[in-house]
């Protein structure tokens, strides 16, 4: 957790939203949550049992970030647009989150694309899936996993892929 927050501070501020403009809303909600890529913001409250996680919400001018920390220490950040859609997710931590849960309907296209790449050439390393409607980047090794996924068509205006981390 600390590692991740440190990393966020160190990142070059390429975000269109200055750090000073971010309002932190710490929701001490005793619940566990996980939304899925492409789902509604209300689905943050769905699947409460799945990650057994704590939630922190950060509001920016253009979107809301739900930061979910699982007991394993892995943090999933879900980006919700003003129209209430999860347009991006990012994860980081010692254990992989359940990517099926996190990616939702995008999981199958992700695994199919990853399998197609592997049939061409076997190997082990990060997976980069870059399609018109879906970008997934998943990397890391035991005790250190990280990645992001977003739906380019749902990115709010002024938000770039670099903002998702």
């Amino acid at each position, binding site marked *: 957790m600390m590692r991740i927050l440190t990393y966020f501070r160190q990142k070059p501020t390429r975000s269109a939203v200055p750090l000073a403009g971010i309002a932190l809303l710490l929701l001490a909600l005793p619940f566990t949550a996980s939304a899925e890529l492409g789902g509604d913001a209300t689905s943050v409250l769905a699947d409460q049992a799945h990650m057994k996680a704590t939630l922190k919400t950060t509001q920016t001018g253009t979107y809301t970030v739900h930061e979910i920390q699982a*007991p394993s*220490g892995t943090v999933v950040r879900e980006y919700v647009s003003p129209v209430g859609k999860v347009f991006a997710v990012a994860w980081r931590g010692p254990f992989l989150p359940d990517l099926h849960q996190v990616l939702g309907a995008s999981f199958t296209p992700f695994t199919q694309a990853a399998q197609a790449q592997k049939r061409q050439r076997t*190997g082990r390393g990060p997976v*980069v899936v*870059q399609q018109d409607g879906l970008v997934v980047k998943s*990397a890391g090794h*035991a005790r250190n996993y*990280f990645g992001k996924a977003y739906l380019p068509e749902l990115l709010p205006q002024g938000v770039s892929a670099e903002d998702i981390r």
Partner: protein
Amino acid sequence: MMTRQNVRRFVSIPLFGALLLAVGCGGSSSPVATPAQSIANTSANVQPISVNLGPTGNYPDGVFTSVTVCAPGSTTNCQVIDNVLVDTGSFGLRVVGSALGSLALNQEIVNGNPLAECFSYVDGTYNWGPVQTADVQISGELASSVPIQVLDDAFSVIPSATCTGTPNDTAATLGANGILGVGPVQYDCGSSCTSNIPAVDQYYQCSTIAPSSSVVTSAALNLQVQNPVSLFATDNNGVIVELPAITAPQATLTGSLVFGIGTQSNNGLGSATVVPMDPNSLTFSTNFQNTNMTGSFVDSGSNALYFDSSSSSLPECSDVTFYCPTSTANLSAVNSGTGGTASVDFTVFNADQLFTTVDAALPGLAGPSDGSFTSFDWGLPFFFGRNVYTSIEGKPAPGGTTPYWAYPPN
């Protein structure tokens, strides 16, 4: 897969080079030249390894070896399994079930039920199968009754709610007959799987009474899949992966996997520089292009160098998974952990040009990471020409607190 003669022939040239250097330096304590690489000869703690295309014939920059798996306590009821991937990025032995043939191992039991594991990968695949104990022999070393994972989709019922994605349990999909995880810790899950309600859904107890089912369970450390090196009687504090330098693609490449650090005459640290890792994330910091990538790691199981680059000299290939510089890029970075720093000079070749060959060992194969500029994955090309030490947490080794990686200076 590799004859003793082949190993000897390979080894003789570097050894001769080291001898010349020693003579040339006259015993000086501050040599100006980097010592020539020495690759260990066949010995009780040395296992031959080979970079080849693996059983599927399409695995570039993978390094493989063979392991002998025996029923616990037996030296005759055994199966030699070749084409096992040597992976310093994971912990424990996983073997494709069919590669065991008729060999029966001892099933681990939790609450009266067989123990199984679902181990997930970044590409949405997983390994599924029972956890069983075996005696694992590699070179002259023996790990007795070590829990391994036997990959088998047909075992019990795969718990579809939490073990999600695509099964990766055959040689055809794995690109190997197994994975030998010899990374820097002993237990593949550790304390995250030991509490009554485990923090991670990784271990399952599988009911044998119809209808069968697989339910998440805690798994005590001694039941978990474990790095077999840590269970060797001696030479159990780490490994050295030794592969020769290459400047052009090679059909195959042979080298040595040496067990122990500073435990025998052939596994001293020598001039290697120690880079400690964070004991939780098993990472250090790589400074590259003035960016500190704090989640960096060394991994023989990654088949390329994977890192994000801001340089226009490293354009991505059309398939976006590798780099395709128009001319070979000579680069450098600095790795640092608490109390240790070591620079690395490295080269990136054009991946599309490398792939025009059907060679297994490709120097300078590299590609992008996840775009966050937070991690440098020093995969197998980093190992070519460097003896890379991976020490194991909790096992004392010369050079400082474990776990660490160490490698010779440029």
